[in-house]
């Protein structure tokens, strides 16, 4: 599903290049549950952003499904990630002005899905995540764990093939974190590919494959 070949990412700071990722080679098959681990500043989020096509590699090749991502135009690329990828963030990034229901509805609106079908999709998802009772609340009225639940629900509502989660439990206490990880496992069992970046050994235990990053290099062990 994903092939990264010699992916390098650096930022120009004056005349010096600061390297964040160095020659990453990685193959990920559909249905995997992968965990990226590494200390702060190792390049975990950058790697996720590149896989998620929010960021672009400075060098190297990236194939997603049958597409050469590095050769695509901006617009085609965003089409691609909208179609296949869902994002989950450490700080949830729900839209504060929208209710739970409306937050879930937003991706469907942008996909121009018809009103009646949209409604049934949102209701199914609310049901599935057992948050029907919360649908008219605003994010500020929810606990962190509940917000992240909504965040994940929003990520999967448009039925993506891949979920990218950047420290999804970073702001949660351990009990809430456990629930979220169990949710990811269930989604993975249903066939969704999951890649998450984390610090936590506990979280890593849920995944079937662990990738270690240090100073931008892919390493075997930390």
């Amino acid at each position: 599903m994903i092939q990264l070949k010699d992916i390098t990412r650096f930022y120009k700071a004056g005349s010096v290049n600061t390297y964040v990722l160095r020659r990453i080679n990685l193959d990920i098959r559909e249905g995997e549950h992968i965990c990226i681990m590494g200390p702060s500043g190792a390049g975990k989020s950058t790697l996720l952003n590149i896989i998620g096509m929010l960021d672009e590699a400075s060098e190297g090749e990236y194939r997603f499904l049958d597409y050469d991502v590095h050769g695509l135009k901006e617009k085609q690329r965003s089409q691609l990630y909208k179609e296949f990828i869902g994002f989950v963030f450490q700080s949830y990034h729900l839209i504060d002005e929208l209710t739970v229901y409306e937050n879930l509805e937003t991706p469907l609106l942008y996909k121009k899905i018809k009103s009646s079908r949209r409604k049934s999709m949102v209701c199914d998802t609310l049901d599935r995540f057992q948050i029907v009772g919360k649908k008219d609340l605003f994010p500020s009225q929810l606990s962190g764990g509940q917000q992240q639940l909504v965040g994940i629900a929003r990520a999967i509502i448009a039925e993506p093939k891949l979920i990218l989660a950047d420290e999804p439990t970073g702001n949660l206490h351990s009990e809430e974190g456990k629930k979220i990880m169990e949710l990811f496992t269930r989604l993975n069992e249903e066939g969704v590919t999951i890649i998450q970046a984390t610090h936590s050994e506990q979280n890593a235990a849920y995944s079937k494959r662990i990738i270690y990053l240090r100073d931008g290099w892919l390493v075997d062990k930390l």
Partner: protein
Amino acid sequence: MFFNYLKISLRNLLKYRGYTFINTVSLSLGITFCMLVFLYVNQEMTFDNFHTEKNRIHSVLYHLVVPDYNIDSYGGAHVPAGPVILGNLPEVENFVRLWDYRDVVSDGTNSRKELLTFADSSLFRIFNFPLLYGDSSTALNRPDALVITEKTARRFFGGENPLGRTLTIRLGREFDEFTITAVAADIPPNSSIRFDFLLPFLRIKDIQGNEFFTDWSYQSAVTYLLLTENAEPAAVVSKFPEVIKNYLDTKHYQYELRTLNQIHLDPNCKLLTHLSGDITNSYILSAIAALVLLIACFNFINLSIGQSVGRATEIGVRKVVGALRSQLMVQFWMETLVLSFISLFLGIALAELFLPTFNSLTARELQLNLIDNPALLIAGLAVCLVTGLLAGGYPAVLLSGFEPVDILRNRFKTTGVGILNRSLVIIQFALCVFLIFVTVVMSRQIDFMKTKELGFNDKLLLSVEAVNVGDSQFDKKYHRKVIQNPTVLSMSATDASFTGAYMMSVGLPTGRPNESALMYRVDCDFVKTVGVNLKAGRDFSEVLVTDRDRAVLVNEKLVEVMGWEEPVGPQLRLPDREEPVTVVGVVKNFHVQSMRYALEPVILHISEIYPTRYFYVRISADNISSTLSFLKDTWQELAPQLPFEYHFVDEAFDRNYRAEERWHRIVRYSSIFAILIACLGLLGLSALMIYGRIKEVCIRKIHGASEISITSLLFKKFVIFVLPACVIGWPVGYLVMQKWLEHFAYRINIGTTGFIISGLVVLVVALLTVSYHTLKTAHTNPTEILRHE
């Protein structure tokens, strides 16, 4: 999707209540201004358009050109022209002439001088003035017919049907009874033709004699032609010389046509209409409205950009979950549009509120009626849409361009308050500086004109209109009785008002064209009563009989124009008498007109062939009200039928400056509006700017900065706005005012006051505005803020 956008817009507007308030208030003020000005301009542009045949109605005017004497003037056609043109040109279907005159109307108990309008009976066939009572085809047929308007009817007869009732009207010397044959609906405010009392045209003979109707020399009347369906006005004009050549010198006289809808704004038609307009006013008002709206739009742009930091996450998330840039732009535009629609409604309400003030400023009777005037609603919606698109455009483009990865990874550099915001604030304040500058200079000029030495004593000087023109017995009797009262210090009679428009002027034999002098018939007490100063020679003498016809007083200006070395003694030839007159004395210059106009040479004479039109009465400061009632009682004793109408000369002189004062008030109101809106914007922007620096302030405080040093640090940022604002506003104001002052013969030097006041006001207002957030920030407890970092 649409409702989703709408919903989000409303929630966002509610969430950022403070900014929504600022934006709504400033936009609605801008819209209010635009609405009011639109009403005005719309009326100006649609004058007289309620007449069905408006495209076939044309006014005839003469154009007199005598190059040798620099004469180039326009006026209504000569009185006999209407019938002559109708008789000679088949393209003309009908004509109507209108002629105004002021005289006394009485219902037996009250009498007052009123404006009488004489009109041919065809008036109602050509124009659409609907009648409430009476038959339009016969309304002006009877010689004693009188048509009044609804308003006049209410004044004299209350709510009753006045048909058949009578009013007594004086024409010339005699009172005559007129029977009301019709009542016309009140005349719409956008009509060039206005009347209260309409009389048959032929009755002018009572005043001017029968020669009036055949006189091609100097009598003229406002004349309208109704052309046939397919007639070409140009073709009609080309036939005029042939028609008038038997009566007029076609070398100097030309006849021209103006379509009905041109009359209101054509400066050459000023004499033809009761309510002439000036297109410049429309331009100036539109420019002011556009400026105020622009300032409001700038607020919107500024605040939206300033707020962008707070909305960055939302934008990033939306993009990540699939929003296209265009979809985000639509969303932001939608928010602006929702806001500008709210402002539109508020603006309409405010326009309603300010309409009476605006009407008094522009001397109009405008009405805000959205149902009858769909153009207004369309204009309002258009302003609202354009504002929404313009003001929302830049922020929409900017905000929707944010890169999600930067935002979500906190690598997002806040656009915050940048060069653009600063420039917009500077432009706003430059406009304020400009408007204040203009206000200050205008008020100084008006003040200057009102307080300038007139050359005579205008205080406690009363001017009484001598309505019984021509009855010298009455004049003498009244004079004799009045002068006996000890509070009446002195009294004089003249044939023209100082402050009025009517003045007789005579050419001066200087050898140069266009040198003329104003001529006043006065009497022996004139110099004493009015308080003019004698500079050389002597005053008129009661005892010297030769003074009656052969002696004149002149002013210094006349001496200067004539170039006399020895001003007393020279002789002048006047067109109205055979013998030359001798200058027996010279008076110091005195102003008889507004300071707009330069002093002119003046000749005073006491020949009694000119009837008294005004009495000038100097009264003492004691018991003014009893003196006034004495003057009135004495008047009514002698002439119970005639109204006693008077005014104080100083007040009348001040009325000369009504137009200037109106403009001054308009500019003053606009500058208050502009400052208010700009301040609202600055208030919001200062909050955003200071909020962006709050961490810096806290760190400084932890390291020992005092509140005063913090305050001055923040103030400095805003003082920087004022200087460039002045640098832009001042020169523009200076140039504009220089141009404006050129209209006045007597004017102030612009001086420094305007610069100082406009700069200081803007500086102080700006500092006061930002001080709220500045002081609040300087007071902040640093640990409160840094704890969250």
